[in-house]
C-alpha cells in the first residue's frame, strides 16, 4: 500500500556506495583473475587448485574455519542458552564482556595468544611455576594455538547468534511438551533440536565466514601454517602475481557467500515447511 515509486530515490546513496565500493571492485578482481579483457582463461584458478602450495593454503583455511566454527558453536551453546533464559547473574555485564573480542581486530587476538600461549607465554610460565612443566608452551604457533586464538575471536559472534535464535524459540512449546509428559531430554531432542538446528547452522555459517576472512590473527601467530588470506597479503606486499591473488580473493568471497547463502536457503525452506 505504501506507494514506493516516488521515494525510491532515497535508495540512491546506498546503491552508489555498494556499486562503487563493493560490486565494481569485486568485478574488477574477477576480471583480473581471468586475465583481463584480452582473451580470458582460468589459468589462475587452475593454479590455485592444483599448485600444491596455494591449494594447501586453501585447504588449511577451510579446515581451520570449519574447525573454529564447529568448536565455537559447541563451546558457546551453554552460555547462549543461559543468556537466552536470563539465568546468568549480572547478565548484562557478562554479555558485554563476552562481546569484547568482537570489536578486536584479529591482530590483537594474535598478540594476546602469543602473550598467553607463546614459548614463554603467561600460561606456560604459570604451569612451570605450579606443575614444574611448561605445558602449552609455544602452542600459539601450532594449529591448536591458532584454533584457540580464532575461537577467542568467535566467542561473541557464536554466543550472540545462538542466544538470539534461542530467544526466538517459543518457550510455550516446551511448556506444552512438559504438560504432555516429555522429560528434559525428550523436550530437547523432540522439540528444541528440530526447531533450532537451523540457527545452529547459521551460527556455523557466521563464524565460518568470519574466521575465513580474518587474517590478523594468522598474521601474527601463523608461523609455518599458510592460510589463504595470508597468501593474499604476501602476494600484495611482496612480489606477487596479481592474477593469482585476485583468484584467491574471488575464491574466498565465493566460499563465504555460498556458505552463508546455502544456510539461508535451508532456512527459508524450513520456514516454508513449518
Amino acid at each position, binding site marked *: 500500500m505504501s506507494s514506493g515509486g516516488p521515494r525510491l530515490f532515497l535508495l540512491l546513496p546506498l546503491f552508489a556506495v555498494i556499486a562503487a565500493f563493493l560490486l565494481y571492485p569485486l568485478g574488477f578482481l574477477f576480471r583480473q583473475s581471468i586475465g583481463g579483457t584480452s582473451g580470458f582463461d582460468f589459468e589462475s584458478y587452475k593454479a590455485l587448485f592444483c599448485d600444491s602450495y596455494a591449494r594447501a593454503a586453501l585447504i588449511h583455511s577451510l579446515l581451520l574455519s570449519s574447525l573454529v566454527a564447529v568448536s565455537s558453536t559447541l563451546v558457546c551453546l551453554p552460555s547462549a542458552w543461559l543468556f537466552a533464559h536470563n539465568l546468568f547473574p549480572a547478565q548484562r555485564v557478562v554479555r558485554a564482556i563476552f562481546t569484547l573480542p568482537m570489536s578486536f581486530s584479529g591482530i590483537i587476538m594474535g598478540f594476546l595468544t602469543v602473550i598467553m600461549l607463546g614459548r614463554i607465554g603467561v600460561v606456560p610460565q604459570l604451569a612451570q611455576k605450579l606443575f614444574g612443566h611448561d605445558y602449552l608452551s609455544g602452542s600459539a604457533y601450532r594449529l591448536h594455538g591458532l584454533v584457540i586464538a580464532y575461537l577467542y575471536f568467535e566467542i561473541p559472534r557464536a554466543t550472540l547468534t545462538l542466544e538470539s535464535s534461542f530467544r526466538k524459540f517459543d518457550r510455550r512449546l516446551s511448556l506444552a511438551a512438559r504438560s504432555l509428559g516429555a522429560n528434559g531430554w525428550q523436550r530437547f531432542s523432540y522439540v528444541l533440536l528440530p526447531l533450532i538446528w537451523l540457527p545452529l547452522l547459521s551460527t556455523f555459517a557466521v563464524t565460518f565466514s568470519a574466521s575465513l576472512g580474518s587474517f590478523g590473527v594468522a598474521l601474527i601467530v601463523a608461523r609455518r601454517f599458510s592460510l589463504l588470506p595470508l597468501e593474499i597479503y604476501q602476494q600484495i606486499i611482496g612480489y606477487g602475481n596479481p592474477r593469482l591473488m585476485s583468484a584467491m580473493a574471488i575464491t*574466498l568471497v565465493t566460499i563465504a557467500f555460498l556458505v552463508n547463502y546455502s544456510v539461508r536457503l535451508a532456512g527459508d525452506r524450513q520456514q516454508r515447511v513449518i
Partner: protein
Amino acid sequence: MTKFKPGLVTAHLLTWLLLIVVIAPLLVVILGAFLNVSFLGLASEQWAARKGDGIFNHGWFAYVFHLYGSNILFSLLLAGLSVVIGAAISLPGAYILATCRWRGLRIFEEVVLLPLSIPGIAMSIGLIEAYITFRGQWWLILCGHILYTVPLMTRVLTNSLRSFDIARLELVAQSLGAGWWHRFVFVVVPNLRHSLIVGSLLVFAVSWGEFNVSYLLNTPLHQTYPAALYATFTANSFQVSSAATTIFLALIIPILFALQWLGGDEFTHVEQSA
C-alpha cells in the same frame, strides 16, 4: 525450580570458564601496560620511555602517544566520519528497504549486507586494485570503512523498522493526512532515534577496531590505529604493545557496555555480524 539440575550447573561452570578465558589476557595486557612486569621478558626502547621508579610506570603511554598519537586521531576521525556518513546513507536506504514490498529490493538488501559476511581482505584488495590510481589517498581508507559500516547501520535500522511494524504506523499517519515526507520526518525518524544511537555506537566501535579492510589501504602518513597496534606488536616491546592495546581497549570497552545497556533484542543478531 528449586531442584538441583546438573545440566544447569555445568552450563554455569562453562560460562564462567569462558568468562575467565576472555578476561585473563586483557588483564595481563593492562597490567603489563602499567607495571614493570619482567617475567614476560625484557623491554627494548629503554632510551624511549622514562621508567618510573617502583613498579608503577606510565612512561609507556607517553611513548605510545608520541609515536602513534597521529594514528589515534586519524582512527577517531575515521570512526566519526563512518558514523555520520553511514547514518546519512543508511537511514533513507533502510527506510525504503523496510517499507517497500518490491521483490527486487529483497535481492538488493542481500547485496547490501554482503560485506558483513565476505572476507575483509578480499574487499580491501578489491579497492586497492580497482582504484590503484588513488592509492595512498587517505579517503580510500574511509571508503573501506564505509563499505564495512554502512551495511551494519542499514541492518540495525531495517531490523528496528520491521520490529515496530512501521508500515502500520505509516498507514495511520497517512489517514491523519501526512504525506510521505511528513511520515518520514515525524514518524519514521523519531522512532529510529534509539536505533540510530545504537547503530552509531556499533559503527564507531567496528570502525575503531577495523583491520582487515583498512590495513592494506594504509598510507605512510595515514595509518589507522589498529595498524599502529600491529606495528607495536611486531616492533615494540611487550610493555609498549600493552600500553597501546590498553589505549585501544579504553575506548572500546565503554562503547560495548553502552551497547549492552541500550541495545534491545533487535540488535543482538546485528552485533553478531559486526
